[in-house]
């Protein structure tokens, strides 16, 4: 196994109890170096709790987490310089400029001199705050700019793992794109990224693998492609001059086809996307299609399939 594909983070049987409430229930996953992992789940699923334990800010009730073989524990301060956490809420000094915030946290991680200055410039460029005036304080930043600074502080010490806790909450599309670009750029340098969100679109567009959390448990963890197979696609179409023999023909070839109450309208639900097959069949049978729409599977549907509830309930 090459270094690029080695396991960087090994989470084993992590549970966290808050009194009698199980915030995390026996979580076990392995994350490879350089991956972008999405933690997808509704509010209260346990995403932030898991990040907090990985970062060493809190302890688990049971289980262990290893970062390249070294166990993460709150007392192990040295490991913290290998982890970057972007908290859900803004966490920077509003009366220090963006540059000063980066310098301050950089110094705490042991950076100084030219290394620190270069790193701060690099980060400011990555997060798109390099053109901000030096005397402008973050208290006057837009929400998007604040989010980006929040991200930048977690990057200043070049962590092996960057964890982002819902980093796009309340930002405009432009800032969201900037954040996405920054994450992708950081990932190209080999940084492993754990990204929590309850926006399925973000997980779909960014992540190599996605872990779906619900009520403290990981109910699925796989690539997007594989996860989508857990949900079904539905194709609805209407044909012209519907005749009885057409339906018989369709039914013969597509046994699970359902006839709608509207004449000539049909629907078919399948785990495998049936669209090419249907189009082929209709074209070959010279049956004219009036309309056709495909309700493709997505993570929302995957979540619905797995839990019986909607992601944003």
């Amino acid at each position, binding site marked *: 196994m090459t270094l690029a594909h080695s396991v960087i983070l090994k989470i084993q049987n992590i549970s966290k109890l808050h009194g009698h409430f199980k915030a995390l229930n026996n979580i076990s996953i392995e994350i490879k170096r350089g991956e972008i992992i999405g933690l997808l789940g509704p509010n209260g699923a346990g995403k932030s709790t898991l990040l907090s334990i990985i*970062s*060493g*800010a*809190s*302890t688990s009730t049971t289980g262990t987490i290893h970062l390249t073989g070294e166990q993460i524990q*709150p*007392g192990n*301060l*040295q490991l*913290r*310089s290998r*982890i970057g*956490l972007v*908290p859900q*809420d*803004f*966490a*920077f*000094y*509003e*009366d*220090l400029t963006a540059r*000063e915030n980066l310098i*301050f*946290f950089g*110094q*705490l*991680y*042991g950076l100084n001199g030219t290394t620190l200055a270069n790193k701060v410039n690099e980060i400011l460029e990555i997060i798109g705050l390099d053109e901000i005036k030096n005397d402008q304080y973050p208290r006057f930043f837009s929400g998007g700019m604040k989010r980006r600074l929040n991200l930048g*502080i977690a990057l200043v010490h070049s962590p092996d793992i960057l964890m982002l806790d819902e980093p796009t909450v309340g930002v405009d599309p432009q800032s969201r794109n900037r954040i996405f670009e920054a994450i992708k750029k950081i990932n190209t340098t080999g940084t492993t990224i754990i990204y929590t969100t309850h926006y399925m679109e973000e997980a779909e567009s960014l992540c190599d693998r996605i872990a779906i959390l619900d009520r403290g448990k990981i109910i699925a963890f796989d690539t997007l492609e594989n996860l989508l197979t857990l949900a079904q696609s539905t194709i609805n179409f209407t044909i012209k001059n519907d005749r009885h023999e057409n339906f018989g023909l369709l039914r013969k070839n597509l046994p699970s086809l359902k006839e709608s109450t509207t004449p000539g309208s049909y629907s078919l639900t399948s785990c495998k996307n049936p669209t090419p097959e249907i189009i082929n069949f209709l074209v070959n049978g010279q049956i004219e299609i009036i309309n056709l729409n495909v309700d493709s599977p997505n993570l929302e549907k995957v979540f619905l399939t797995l839990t019986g509830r909607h992601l944003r309930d």
Partner: protein
Amino acid sequence: MQSLIIAKKELKLLVRDKLTTTVLFALPFSMILILGFLLGEGFGQKTDDLMRISILNLDEGKGLDNKSWADHTIEDIVSTPNIKVEIIQNKQLAQNLVKTGKRAAVIVFNQNFSNKVNVCSFLSTGVNPFHRDGVYLEKLDVSIIKDTKQPATSAIIESVCQIALLRIVMPWMIGQAFEKLGDPEFIELLGKEVSLPVPPSLRLLIPKEKIPLGELLELASGKDVALARNYREKVGAGIQTALIGQFKNYNLTGKSWASLTRSINPTETDKTLTLYQNEDGAGILKRGAIRYQILVPSFTVMFAFSLILISGWIFVAEKRQGTFDRLLGTPVSTINILIGKFLPIVLISLFQILFLLAFGKILLGIKIGQYDWSITNWMTSLIFLPFATSICVASFSLFIGILAKNETQLALFSSIPVCLFALLGGCIFPWEMMPDNAKNLSAFTPQGWALDAFREIMPSAFDTSTDFQLILKSSLVLLTMGLILTFMTWGIFERIRLGHAKA
């Protein structure tokens, strides 16, 4: 090093908040000035300090022991335990002091006081100064200038004057009267008044049933005039000796109260006699006024501990804005974070204390230290004590800051050290205005210890000694309190960091 980075950041944030920084230094400054103007010169002085007997001595005569009777009377009042006497320099000043309400009454011993006392006697030719309630002041050429708006206090002062005069005039008159018992003239008078029965066996010599004592003495002297006088004197002396033997507990010839009553004279330390001194200060700011001698140390200590609220607020704000968790997420050790938070508070507190002392010295003319202090004494007072106080302030700030989870909790928690302890410690009401046992409570507050020591380095005009042991002891108590609180804060901090407690 990392702690210095945190400390630098904290200071930078504070300096950028210009309004807070200004208030931090300007508020105590303004409070001292405003309260100084509002409270007047009597503020901070003990009731005992204010209750003093003011005397104007114009007596030009001489009395017993070639000393004026006014001096004897003043000495008598001064010798009364716990009564302070001040001498007013002239009549105009006395009248002004009473007129402006600064003194309730001033006792005036006028020019003829001694002469009048000298002629007081039980003899018919002498002056009888007594009446049912005491002494006729006018008969002794004594007057009292009274403030009609302070009738109770002036009545007390007059009573003190009456009792003192009784103690002076009565023994003088008794002593004089007793001396008269030995005079031949008195025996001659007695000889005419007292008749003795003649026994029958002597009736041949003295053919009378009764014979006057004087005649008997003449008979005994054989009509020798000189010898008869001698006999009279002997009888007089005999009467005196007999009376002395009869009234052993009293010295009837004493002429002073202490001598008459055979009392032990009070020790010198009980005597408090001062010259009147204007304590109102000079100039618009009333520089040198005694009230600032109380206000400056009180407010210096009170505002030093008020930093708990400001520093705690910054701490809680850091928790609220998430930077506290971010700090905990860095590889910086807990002790370094604590030192980083601790140092700026110590520095600000130290600077604030020294600023207020300098302000007090330069603008308000308060007295700091004594001219004969050694360098060690100055270092103890102006460096070690402020430093120990600042350590205690910083420890309290971090302790409250780490305990409080939000601003409401902070306001509630910090009200204990900032308000309650300031009140108990004597920063708001001087101890002089509190009952004696209330001062014991101040031992449980850091303000009490700090104030005790700061007042020691800012003594009143009449104090000439400084208790350096008290300053050292207070500083050590403050340091100990600081260490205990810091240790507790470190414990809570570690629990938070190890995920056992929430910030």
